[in-house]
């Protein structure tokens, strides 16, 4: 069905199609439409929407709902994302499937509430304390927001990790044409549940399986959930050997299965001498710039990470060994640039065009910078 939607609206459409039946959060610009539309739509499909007293309880209630077997989501922006960090760590350690949407605005602090930014990409990776697995996906269009929201739920269910859908004010608020598919065309992954009568080890992995089976709280399986290091029974354990086993297993999720998780777009990169690297809303500008630059005779391609974490390291590394340089552009002071420098590892120069004043970098600005650095 053809619709004309905002990215934020497409996110809710995707979430509902993925099976979201619980939303809790606290409204904040520029993410509010996600809460607004979830409030309208969830009761119609037998779901629940709760506006909580703040962002902390917003994610906490979603964690609780997920433990009872519902697919849950919360959305926020700017300072709200900071408030959610502690519970993101809890969800990572307790292995609670969850989708957290962050529609990035200008920061730090209250910053620029109605303007775009991309200053949360490192916070999305390391915002909560301690080593932890995280998956972070970033869409560049209304249609991709729809599909990545579905993917975020599927990955959360499959790997029992919190998944961050990292959008920005550009993709969140822009309206575009979207063709919403029939639900029968969409692949949905649901968490594995234990069989009745089994001896249940809530944090023990069955042979041949990826993560522990997850019983719905209240369904008859008694178990304990904690943010402390725990053994297979779910009860706290101070054993260093147990902590090593648990952390190794958690941290391996996004490494062992990275080929299933990692996603990126490489446009005109086969013959490219130079790359422009952009992601999320900024890649719209980069795509337009790359097309103009190619018309002007430059051999340039676009590399766009769709999964920011884990980062498409192998694909970028292969290209970094071939090109004369990479121009990274993002709406911050160079966060993903650090990652690109690490991967390029001195094999080619990494140039940068960024800003953090709430303005979008236009294709014209990018073309001008490219022609300066790629002489």
């Amino acid at each position, binding site marked *: 069905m053809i619709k004309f939607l905002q990215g934020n609206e497409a996110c809710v459409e995707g979430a509902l199609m993925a099976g979201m039946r619980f939303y809790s959060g606290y409204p904040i610009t520029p993410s509010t439409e996600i809460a607004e539309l979830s409030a309208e739509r969830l009761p119609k499909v037998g779901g629940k929407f709760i506006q909580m007293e703040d962002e902390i309880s917003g994610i906490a209630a979603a964690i609780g709902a997920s433990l009872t077997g519902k697919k849950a989501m919360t959305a926020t922006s700017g300072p709200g994302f900071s408030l959610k960090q502690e519970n993101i760590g809890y969800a990572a350690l307790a292995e609670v499937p969850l989708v957290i949407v962050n529609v990035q605005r200008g920061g730090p602090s209250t910053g620029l509430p109605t303007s775009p930014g991309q200053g949360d990409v490192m916070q999305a990776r390391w915002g909560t304390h301690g080593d932890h697995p995280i998956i972070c996906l970033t869409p560049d269009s209304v249609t991709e927001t729809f599909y990545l929201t579905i993917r975020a739920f599927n990955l959360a269910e499959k790997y029992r990790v919190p998944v961050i859908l990292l959008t920005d004010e*550009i993709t969140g608020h*822009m309206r*575009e*044409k979207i063709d919403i598919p029939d639900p029968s065309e969409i692949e949905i992954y649901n968490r594995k549940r234990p069989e009745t009568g089994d001896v249940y080890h809530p944090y023990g992995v069955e042979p041949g399986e990826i993560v522990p089976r997850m019983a719905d709280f209240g369904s008859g399986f008694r178990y304990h959930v904690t943010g402390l290091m725990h053994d297979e029974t779910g009860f706290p354990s101070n054993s260093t050997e147990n902590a090593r086993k648990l952390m190794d297993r958690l941290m391996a999720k996004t490494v062992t299965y990275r080929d299933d998780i990692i996603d990126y777009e490489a446009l005109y990169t086969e013959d490219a001498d130079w790359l422009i690297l952009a992601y999320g809303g900024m890649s719209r*500008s980069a795509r*337009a710039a790359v097309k103009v630059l190619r018309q002007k005779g430059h051999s340039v391609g676009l590399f766009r990470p769709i999964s920011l974490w884990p980062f498409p390291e192998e694909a970028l590394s292969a290209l970094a060994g071939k090109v004369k340089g990479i121009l990274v552009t993002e709406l911050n002071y160079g966060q993903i640039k650090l990652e690109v420098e690490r991967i390029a590892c001195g094999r080619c120069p990494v140039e940068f065009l960024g800003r953090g004043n709430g303005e979008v970098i*236009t*294709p*014209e600005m990018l073309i001008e910078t490219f022609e300066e650095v790629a002489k």
Partner: protein
Amino acid sequence: MQLELRLSGSGGQGLITAGIILAEAALADGKNAVQTQSYGPEARGGASKAEVIISDEIIDFPKVTRPNLILALTQDAAAKYVDASNSDAMVIVDESVELSPETGLKKLFRVPIIDTARHEIGREIVANIVALGLIVGLTQIVSQENLEATVIKRLPRGTEDLNRMALQAGYDLAKQI
């Protein structure tokens, strides 16, 4: 062929709604369209703008950089959003807006949009729809048929006649230019 439009005014004047309507009418005409917006933290007041790009092709960069058409309903919005760098752009301002004669704009029109809504239709709230009728009457960027259908679809039930009158008043203003 890509058309870039900027509709500006004060928050609450319905310019974002007008932008959505224009973009949806363009989709109904079989074209591509993207709509974006920019506004301050206020719920009402403040300068607000909606931007629409209409194209026969894929639209990569969603923001307007070189508008072909600018509408400004208030002095504040005109000061902030009328971009004189493209002197060929069509600029439509409400008659209450004063622009320096030195702008060099070749296609500048001052039109009683708000006054028409207030006195001819009797409801200032339809100034955005009068403006849509005026823009489409002047430029034919979308078909009048799909414009009207989209206005009726997007706006609350019970306001059909009011909005049809507002569209017609806009078309009439266009004919007088």
